């Protein structure tokens, strides 16, 4: 186990009520804490990478955490290139791993990101 959500019972900052949010990751149902970003939910659920780079299809997950590096992009509800570190998880969100490698067969709606 690497990344994990802080156990609310042991959390020194005493967070408010912890409601569950449920998303779908590559077909599997995954739960997180309401208010977390999609990246937070993915990391707490044990995913460390969810994208392949365009040249080498190398794995990428979260890096900068603030929307600057674009390492964390994934297909969210059918839309590719969504920075999951910037998006709060909503019930029913569907996250699909994104490969930017030309050989990859992942079907996705292309975006117009620069």
């Amino acid at each position: 186990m690497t990344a994990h959500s802080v156990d609310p019972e042991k959390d020194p900052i005493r967070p408010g009520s912890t409601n569950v949010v449920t998303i779908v990751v590559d077909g599997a149902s995954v739960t997180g804490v309401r208010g977390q970003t999609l990246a937070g939910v993915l990391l707490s659920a044990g995913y460390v990478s969810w994208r392949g780079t365009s040249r080498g299809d190398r794995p990428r997950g979260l890096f900068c955490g603030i929307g600057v590096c674009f390492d964390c992009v994934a297909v969210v509800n059918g839309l590719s290139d969504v920075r999951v570190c910037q998006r709060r998880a909503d019930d029913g969100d569907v996250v699909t791993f994104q490969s930017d490698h030309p050989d990859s067969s992942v079907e996705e709606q292309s975006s117009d990101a620069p």
Partner: protein
Amino acid sequence: MKIVVIGAGPAGLAAARAALDANQRVVLLDAADDLGGQYWRHLPSSRPSSNEAVLHHQWTNFVELRARLEDDPLCEVVTSAHVWAIDRAGIHVLVGPPDGPDRERRTYPTDAVVVATGAHDRVLPVPGWELPGVYSAGGAQALAKGDRVAVGERVLVAGSGPFLLPVALSLANSTSTVVGVVEASRARRVASSWAARPWELVGARTKVAEAGSYAREFARHRIPYVMGRAVTAIHGAECVESVTIAAVDSSWAPIVGTEYSLAVDAVCLGHGFTPRLELAIALGCQLNDRRFVAIDEGQRTSVVGVYAAGEITGVGGADLALVEGTIAGHLAAGGRLDDEVLGQARRHRATWRRFAARLDVAHAIGERWSQWLTPETTICRCEDVTYQQLRTVARVTDSSGLRSLKLTSRAGLGICQGRTCGRTIESLLGAWSNEGGLIDGVTTDRRPIAVPVRLGELRVDSRDAATD
């Protein structure tokens, strides 16, 4: 007149308040869905913490500031507001979820603007830094504060600068074991920059107290802090498993024979900060020789009506950002620099700037850091360009400049638009140019489209809400 403040971190919040105090109307824009910027990132209102102050200095200051702005009818607070371009027609904003779809289009005037877009981590490449489980120090901090997610069980924090301290403490307060904080600057250099002209630090007593509280907290959490060392390689098959640490000399070149390794499941790296300049550049603001937005005593940029505050004018921490914001907001609202209300802010600004200048000297990136790179080290994370590929392209094309180097190697041309590797490539190219190449004056700071936009969102019939 309406004063548009871009960025709701300490600088932008203080600017908005100062402009409201001078009875002007304010529009405060931020891409995040809550106020606070990087410094005051916190749990969302759906899950408020009753003890947020554990992770924040000056938390009550923020709560008051936020209430002041949200309660004032003269202040229009627009969150989830992505400023994606600025041109003659105005400040172009898409309001809605990050990266769309279907965001609302708005345009705001540029007559009076305070730019307070802050900075992001500068992370130097290290062999293995592209492995999952390696995070920027700020990224780990953002996850800890905003999501209550700890990036690992056994975490190493490494790089340079005082920012490593709050990151390590947040992790420790998020049930991680911090196996160490590794600072590349050597103790002697840090000590000498502090010991010089101590009278200049009078007024910065709170910082000395802060340093004391870090020392106590590090002891309580048993976090080892070492100086004059750097992470020179990160290892793992699928994910981070261990790091190699080595002693470095004063130029950050690793000293052979000093290496040792440590088992970890996450690494947080930070070697300083890079200002988020694209909007200031789009407004036409000139940069200074240190590559921050150039400002005068009144926080005025080179463009009439445009002010800048916070980390885009120099890295100095939240206290400096707050007072710069106060001065910028007051002047943008038509106030004068010698108005009495600014007396305290100006005095504090002078103190915090002296403080920042020392940190700059103490923790500046050593000029021979690249000695820890190997031919296979990834330099550009987006396009998987290695050190060797970059070096080869530079040689073959006679490294005549950044533009040709980028076009041939594709380094810096990926989806992040060179935000992560841009300054590194410039620094490598600069070092190689001693061997015969030339720099063409091109930098990686210009990005006409600041955040990605979907073509569908630009259709004429898309929800267009031009604001006066």
